[in-house]
């Protein structure tokens, strides 16, 4: 009787026959599943069996007292809403009942309307309590799943390295094979280091680093520095790097490290998922109080079915070509978090076989000399998704 599709259930416990009859009628008419019991012992049995949403109980009954019924109902399910009926109404007994966990009280005699009102309120309360309990559970499960998953991600490269070393210890192999395995081990250790670095950045962003540290950062300079650092890597892949950004004026307020990580992620992706002879183009402009940066590549592109998940934690495109490229699955997720924390947006335009453009929009920092932002230009590269 979990009652997911059933109407809410109410148990009425009262030694007065007329009371049980009329309450039962009113509640049934309200579309509720109502059950009535004539004393505490039977009532509690009924509660245990029916698992109702609400219990209406008379405080003064022969046998088990209403007050005791109250606490025993909550032993069965602390979320059941209890309303007590107080016959010889004194405020004291009502207050005592509320202290014992009753939701509300109904002084005898009461009208059908009063009963309906209090039952509806109580059921609403029950619904909210269950909902928040469910959210709490869902959150706890998500957290647990995330921790399990991250532990697995961290352990995987470590296990591979361990296994190689373990086998090398037992097996005499050719120097060539051994050399190859050592290189594989180094790659996996690097993978582990990247994962830890990414994870720490994520923790930093989630810890609110972007809000705490808001200094004026020149994105033009950051981008030029990153491109310079990747010049060789790109050349080795046969990818050329082009930049059309203003030397100054692309200023935002934020954490310099996080902003470096953001553009580092986008630019390394553009190089990694490119093709020999391809090109990475970074453009930056200021427009309507926003700094707009576009990182465009001429790579394989991203199929439409993957795009909704692109910024999710640990999401990686499952194509064969993507499988060969190392990655933690955190880069774009982190990028999105950084941009969002700064009140900006990131989105992707992509064409399979032609390439992708990642657009980042961030609120421009107020320029102390010239007023807001700066002029809208920077080579005014026309819509770079027109490829």
């Amino acid at each position, binding site marked *: 009787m979990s009652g997911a599709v059933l109407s809410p259930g109410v148990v009425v416990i009262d030694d007065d026959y007329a009371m049980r009859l009329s309450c039962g009628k009113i509640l049934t008419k309200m579309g509720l599943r109502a059950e009535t019991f004539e004393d505490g012992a039977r009532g509690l049995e009924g509660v245990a069996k029916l698992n109702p949403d609400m219990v209406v109980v008379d405080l003064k009954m022969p046998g088990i007292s209403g007050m005791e019924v109250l606490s025993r109902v909550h032993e069965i399910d602390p979320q059941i809403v209890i309303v007590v009926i107080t016959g010889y109404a004194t405020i004291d007994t009502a207050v005592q009942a509320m202290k014992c966990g009753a939701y509300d009280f109904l002084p005898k005699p009461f009208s059908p309307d009063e009963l309906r009102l209090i039952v509806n309120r109580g059921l609403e309360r029950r619904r909210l309590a269950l909902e928040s309990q469910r959210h709490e559970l869902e959150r706890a499960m998500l957290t647990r799943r995330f921790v399990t998953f991250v532990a*697995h991600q961290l*352990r995987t490269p470590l*296990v591979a390295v361990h*296994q190689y070393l*373990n*086998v090398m210890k*037992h097996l005499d192999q050719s120097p060539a094979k051994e050399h190859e*395995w050592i290189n*594989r081990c180094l790659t996996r250790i690097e993978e582990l280091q990247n994962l830890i670095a990414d994870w720490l950045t994520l923790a930093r962003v989630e810890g609110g680093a972007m809000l705490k540290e808001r200094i004026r950062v020149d994105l033009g300079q950051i981008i030029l520095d990153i491109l310079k650092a990747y010049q060789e890597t790109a050349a080795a892949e046969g990818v050329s790097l082009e930049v059309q950004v203003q030397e100054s004026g692309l200023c935002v307020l934020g954490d310099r490290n996080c902003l470096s990580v953001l553009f580092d992620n986008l630019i390394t992706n553009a190089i990694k998922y490119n093709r020999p002879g391809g090109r990475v183009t970074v453009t930056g402009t200021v427009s309507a109080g926003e700094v707009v940066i576009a990182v465009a590549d001429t790579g394989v592109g991203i199929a439409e079915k993957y795009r909704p998940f692109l910024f999710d934690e*640990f999401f990686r495109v499952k194509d064969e070509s993507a499988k060969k490229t190392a990655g933690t699955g955190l880069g774009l997720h982190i990028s999105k978090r950084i941009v969002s924390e700064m009140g900006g947006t990131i989105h992707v335009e992509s064409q399979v076989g032609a390439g992708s453009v990642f657009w980042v929009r961030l609120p421009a920092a107020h320029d102390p000399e010239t007023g807001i932002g700066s002029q809208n230009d920077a080579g005014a590269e026309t819509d770079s998704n027109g490829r």
Partner: protein
Amino acid sequence: MREQKRILMVDDDRDFSEAVTSFLEANGLKVFRANDGKEGVKLAKMERPDLILMDIMMGERTEGFFTIQEIRRDPALKDVPIFVLSSFCTRLPDFEIPSSGGWLAHDMFFAKPVDMAQLMENILQHIGKPG
């Protein structure tokens, strides 16, 4: 001379597979490798291995469980010993194998990284000496 004993290894980590496979092959076993559950089922049906080594977390889910179920559905493979090799947890009772999941009494669990000597010993106990 008897036919060489055949092992199927299903694991999405190519490095882990490579290391384990090299050891088993150096010890006289023939090893087929599959990088995911789907390929694992295909190779199992095609090659009829004497024993299967199965990873659990492949891709982003516990694909190994489904793969075991799928493999067991084939009458020719319903009794083949399956060793689970996983870093998902360190001991068997930590994860639940659905009762309908095709888990048999002779199946075993090994935590990654795997002690090769121990794995080899158990494989030989299950399938007999390599031919």
